């Protein structure tokens, strides 16, 4: 999500529940869809820059331009820089990773005689980030002199849509991306490259007034290679990159039973060249009251996801623990059910939307990191049992017509895994989380925003029996406040404070910070002395101020 200037985002859609048919079997619990603006509805130029009291600088530029009479384009550039070695908790480690990042986004819209869609977007990101001991310099990269984790990332991606010039509604969607990581975690090198190419043909047919059919053919190619044991051949000798071909076919039918009842069912069949057949059915049911003020949605489906440990779990790369894969890791498979109720209450003074959801996901396989069996290792293995993620979530959105808006939500969840009939709560996962946002627009173009998060206790990974740190994190809250003022049609100034309560995890969260290379320590006898940052459960960035300026030309 980084790198697309906010000014180019039209809206963000959140689809709750399994959405496998159109989006693939990895859409287990839902999807977040970022929709960029259409060139016709975008400002000519937008700039947004802000700086924080920690020395972070961020600039976003958005531009609308014409390539030819029939081709409109949107360009977005994002630049972020943070180079201060701040250590407020005095553990000799940088509190926030130092970053230098540039991201360029471009979207082209080509107008055709038939008025059918053709758009191509592309994005390039380059990032140089590092965190570690305060006196780390680039010359120490990969050495055991001073500890530092340094990551260079190069990423490009392109995606687009083309509506075929047929009388029937057929569209072709494509995307490709390349991701290259060159990194060091202390003395451990991790270099990885991933290339993905994807194409999908979707045929949309309105069979009757009440029946809409979607038929599709998809193909995805994934190439992944790294320097770890995850990409070695069967004998563990030669490097063998992972190459997966994934052709698929899907069908989805949406039936409007009547003005109030809507039924959608779909099925997708993919063939994974390494893991075999994947069948993902899905069913969605929606009921709405006559006036559309009450809506109930029920969705059921399954998910299938191939876990990629080193790209997904930073903890596998950092720290002193040895990473072990036990057996051949199989894909994660799950079944998900989601029930959602929305109620809209409208009065002349306020518009209220209440949203209640209940979710239940049953995993018959999950690849979870085991920090506890052996404090010197992180063990990844197929689950010998099952894992359940379930919960309820409530959200209230109140828009007062006098300019005040309040949005508050809370989620209560229970995420656990059960092996040998023993149920264990998942690590680093809170049972309760709350979020809120209160905004008020004054009549003189002045507005105030107060936002925050509240987290309940999480179970934390300890290093053996002699680890003195608490097993559970405390209740904590991160709160922010912002004031902004508009000047005329084009300028806006804003400023505020982030992390008002100045909450950070305890100073000893990075274990063994004074001896990151474990010199003179027998980590098997005394695991509680080993270097290990896995306990860090929240950001180390304390209270800071920021100020920014926005300019928009229509």
């Amino acid at each position, binding site marked *: 999500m980084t790198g697309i200037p906010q000014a180019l985002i039209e809206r963000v859609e959140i689809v709750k529940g399994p959405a496998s048919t159109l989006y693939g079997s990895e859409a287990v619990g839902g999807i977040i869809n970022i929709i960029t603006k259409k060139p016709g509805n975008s400002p000519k130029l937008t700039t947004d820059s802000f700086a924080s009291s920690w020395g972070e600088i961020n600039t976003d530029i958005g531009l609308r331009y014409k390539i030819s009479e029939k081709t409109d384009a949107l360009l977005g550039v994002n630049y972020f820089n943070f180079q201060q070695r701040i250590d407020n908790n005095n553990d000799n480690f940088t509190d926030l990773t130092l970053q230098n990042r540039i991201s360029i986004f471009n979207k082209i819209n080509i107008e055709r005689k038939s*008025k059918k*869609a053709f758009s191509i977007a592309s994005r390039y990101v380059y990032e140089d980030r590092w965190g570690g001991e305060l006196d780390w310099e680039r010359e120490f990269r990969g050495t055991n002199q001073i500890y530092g984790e340094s990551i260079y990332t190069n990423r490009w991606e392109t995606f687009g849509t083309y509506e075929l010039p047929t009388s029937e509604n057929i569209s072709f969607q494509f995307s490709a991306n390349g991701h290259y990581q060159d990194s060091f975690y202390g003395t451990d090198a991790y270099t990885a490259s991933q290339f993905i190419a994807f194409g999908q043909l979707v045929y949309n047919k309105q069979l009757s007034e009440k029946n809409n059919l979607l038929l599709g053919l998809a193909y995805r190619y994934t190439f992944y290679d790294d320097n770890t044991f995850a990409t070695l051949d069967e004998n563990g000798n030669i490097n063998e990159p992972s190459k997966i071909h994934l052709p698929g076919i899907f069908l989805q039918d949406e039936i409007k039973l009547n003005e109030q009842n809507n039924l959608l069912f779909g099925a997708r069949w993919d063939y994974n060249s390494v893991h075999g057949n994947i069948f993902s059915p899905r069913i969605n049911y929606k009921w709405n009251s006559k006036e559309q003020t009450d809506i109930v949605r029920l969705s059921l489906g399954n998910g299938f996801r191939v876990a990629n440990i080193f790209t997904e779990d930073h903890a596998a790369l950092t720290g002193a623990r040895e990473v072990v894969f036990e057996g051949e890791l199989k894909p994660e498979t799950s079944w998900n059910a989601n029930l959602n109720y929305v109620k809209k209450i*409208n009065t002349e003074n306020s*518009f209220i939307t209440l949203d209640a959801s209940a979710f239940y996901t049953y995993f018959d396989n999950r690849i979870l990191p085991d920090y506890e069996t052996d404090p010197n290792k992180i063990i990844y293995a197929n689950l010998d049992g099952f894992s359940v993620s379930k919960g309820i979530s409530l959200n209230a959105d109140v*828009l007062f017509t006098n300019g005040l808006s309040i949005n508050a939500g809370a989620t209560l969840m229970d995420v656990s895994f059960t092996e040998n009939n023993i149920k264990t709560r998942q690590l680093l996962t809170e049972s309760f989380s709350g979020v809120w946002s209160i905004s008020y627009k004054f009549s003189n173009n002045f507005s105030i925003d107060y936002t925050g998060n509240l987290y309940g206790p999480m179970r934390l990974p300890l290093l053996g029996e002699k680890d003195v740190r608490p097993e559970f994190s405390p209740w904590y809250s991160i709160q922010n406040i912002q004031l902004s003022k508009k000047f005329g049609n084009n300028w806006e100034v804003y400023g505020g404070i982030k992390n008002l309560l100045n909450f950070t995890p305890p100073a000893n969260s990075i274990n063994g910070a004074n001896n990151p290379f474990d010199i003179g320590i027998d980590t098997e006898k005394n695991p509680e002395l080993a270097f290990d940052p896995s306990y860090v459960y929240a950001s180390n960035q304390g209270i800071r101020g920021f100020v920014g300026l926005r300019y928009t030309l229509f």
Partner: protein
Amino acid sequence: MKKICLILLLSPLFNLAQQTNKLAVYTFEEVEKLYQQHPKPLLVFVYTDWCKICFGMKNTTFKNEQIIKILNANFYVIFLNAETKNEIAFFGKSFKNSTAGIHDLTNILASKNKQIGYPTTVIVNKDLSIELQFQGFLKSTKLKSVLESFLIKNNK
């Protein structure tokens, strides 16, 4: 015989009830036909499915009895879904959804200072030119005064 008489007696009552309780909303094509017989100014409400304020305004301002009375008597009301893919014909001109994804009518009606926002309430006068445009939520009291001053000004 008795049953039919009752129904005949009650039907004018039903007609009255419809006129005072429900807002008459037309399509562009219907308005073109009605306009030939009886020209009236138009009120076009431009909305989208995902816009909460649009939904709220439809259920409050446009359900207000006084607003309904003024609109039903003096205007032709059209609710335009800004994202409609339908081609709309109006007075010899054809308006389509262009490739930029925005409908021609949305560009014409919902654009103020080159920005398109939802909802936009547009008052089109009898000459079929845009007289007034309001972006954002319009409370019934505000819309009432806008409609009344427009009618006073145009009935001179």
